[in-house]
Structures are given as C-alpha cells and as structure tokens.
C-alpha cells in the first residue's frame, strides 16, 4: 500500500518540478524546482527497489550538481537579466524560411509523429506483456560485486573520465594570470 503512496508523491514532485523548470523565468527558482524534480526521481528509484541509485542521486545531484548550478548562476549575474521579458515564458522560435519550407517542415513533423507514435505504442504494448515486477534485495552488495567483476573496466574508466573532467574544467575556469599582472601595471600607470 505504502509503495503506491510513495510513487504518487514522487511522481507529483518530479512532474511538478520539471514543468516549473520550464515555466519559471527566474533562473534561481528554476534551480530549486530542478532540485524538487531530482528528489522526486530519487523517490521513484526507491519505488523501483534501486536504493543505492536513489542515494547516489541525492548525494551527487542535491549535494553537488545543484550547488554547482547555483554557484554558476551567482557567478554569471544572478540570472536577473532574464526576469522581465514576457509573461508567457517560452520564447517564440525565430521565424525563418518561406512557405515551402514550412510545408515540408509540417509534412516531416507529421511523418515523425506517426513513426514515433508507432514506436511508442509498440514499446508500451511490449511493456504491458513484460509487467512482472521483481525485487532486488541488498542492492548495494550486488552493485559492488558487479562493479568489481563484470563492470570493472567501466569502474576504472569512470575514474579516468572524472580525472579528465576535473583537469579540463580546472584549466577552463582558471582565471588567467596575465590579467592579474596587467591590472597591476595599470595601477602603476594611474
């Protein structure tokens, strides 16, 4: 019984947060609604029996990515310039091309919709057939075992990925030392 309650609460948080990320103009608020949505997704992981993934979602996203986003918004001017544009938040797409391009565009959109709908319905119908929930017990230890046996290459490669990300991001965001000296020389001349 309670798993359904948990599911509905988490689903509400996820969808509500995601929609408000779209509609909210203030970037700081968007970050907070993203936080809501991410916590909702963590709750959905719990209903799926993926405890460890849920906790990782909390640790990495809530503790890391969201704070990083907030810092970035701070450092780039607080997201203030965007607030006072228009009430309907979604910007209109710039108009380009002529009637023929619009015709072909509409036609291809219809084709895409049909193909996509076909794929989606087949996915959903196959999903109904495969509807037999199985639970994992002690997911942490299974994940640990898998990480050390079958997926050990991924485990090691992820450390290389993180190293690359760390060095790359540190190099990119490092304030250039040349500027410091130039400013110092400017101070002398004035």
């Amino acid at each position, binding site marked *: *019984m*309670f*798993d359904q*309650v*948990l599911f509905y*609460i988490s689903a509400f948080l996820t969808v509500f947060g995601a929609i408000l990320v779209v509609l909210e103009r203030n970037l700081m608020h968007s970050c907070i609604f993203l936080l809501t949505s991410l916590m909702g997704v963590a709750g959905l992981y*719990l*209903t799926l*029996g993926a405890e*460890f993934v849920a906790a*990782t979602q909390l*640790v*990495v996203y809530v*503790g*890391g*990515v969201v*704070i*990083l986003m907030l*810092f*970035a918004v*701070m*450092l*780039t*001017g*607080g997201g*203030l310039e965007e607030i006072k544009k228009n009430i309907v938040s979604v910007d209109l797409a710039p108009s380009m091309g002529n009637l023929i391009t619009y015709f072909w565009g509409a036609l291809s959109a219809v084709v895409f919709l049909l193909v996509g709908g076909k794929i989606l319905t087949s996915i959903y119908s196959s999903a109904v057939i495969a509807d037999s929930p199985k*639970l994992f017990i002690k997911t*942490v*230890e299974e*994940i*640990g*075992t898998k*990480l*050390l046996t079958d997926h*050990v290459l991924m*485990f*090691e490669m*992820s*450390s*290389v990925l*993180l*190293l690359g*990300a*760390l*060095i790359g*991001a*540190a190099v990119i*965001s*490092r*304030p250039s*030392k040349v500027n*410091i*000296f130039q*400013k*110092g020389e400017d*101070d*002398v001349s004035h």
Partner: protein
Amino acid sequence: MNQNFDAYIPIIVLMTLGILMVIGALIVGSLIRPKNPNKLKLQPYECGEDPTGSAWANFNVRFYVVALIFIIFDVEGALMFPVAAVFKKFNEAGAGGAILISVLIFIAVLIQGIVYCWKKGDLDWVKSYQVDGNDNKVAEK
C-alpha cells in the same frame, strides 16, 4: 515485500514534518506577534548606511573551482561506497589482492587530479599579494 517499502515511511514523514513545523510556527506566530513594518526596517542591514546596489553581484571564481573539485570527489566517493561494502567479503573469499589493486588504481587516478590542481595553485584560496615599496601589487612567486 510490503515490509520493504515501510522502511521509507519515516523519510517522507520527517521531511513533511520539517515543512509543517516551519509553516505551523509561522501561523501560530502570526496570531501573537506585532506587525508594524516601516521602510527602514525592511531595508537590508548594512551597518546603518543606506544599501548601495544589489548584493547579487558577481563573485570570486574561486568559489566555483572549489565546488568543481568537490563534485569530482563526491562522485568518486559515491562509486567507492558499494566497492568498500563488499571488500570484506571478497577478502574473506581470498580475492582481496585483486580487488585491492583495482581499488588502488581507481584512487591513484583521482589522486593525480588533486595533485595537478595543487601544483597549478587551484587549491590556494586567494592568491596572496605582496605590496612592494611603491604600493605596487606583486603576485607571489
């Protein structure tokens, strides 16, 4: 199977309680507390002066670099936790050496990252300036 989900009840209840406590205290307080705001009271505090400009100005990029190094180590910790949880079992089964090596490789790769940032001075919070005789700022080293 039902029992499994019961374990998550306290999480939801406690988080809701956190929200309700704040709302409840504010509602109860609104019945008894005074409410006579004036313009000076609603100003941000700046030691008695009129505040100049918004506080939402640009900040030092150092804060960001620290957050950046943190997030990498955060993810590393998240990946290390399941491995650490099974290390003992593998060791008891006699496979400790191989596991130890793979864990050590994982950590060693990330130590290179922190060593790099250390060498390049990203871990220094503020680059300290020294002022020479003519009031010129000179970067250290």
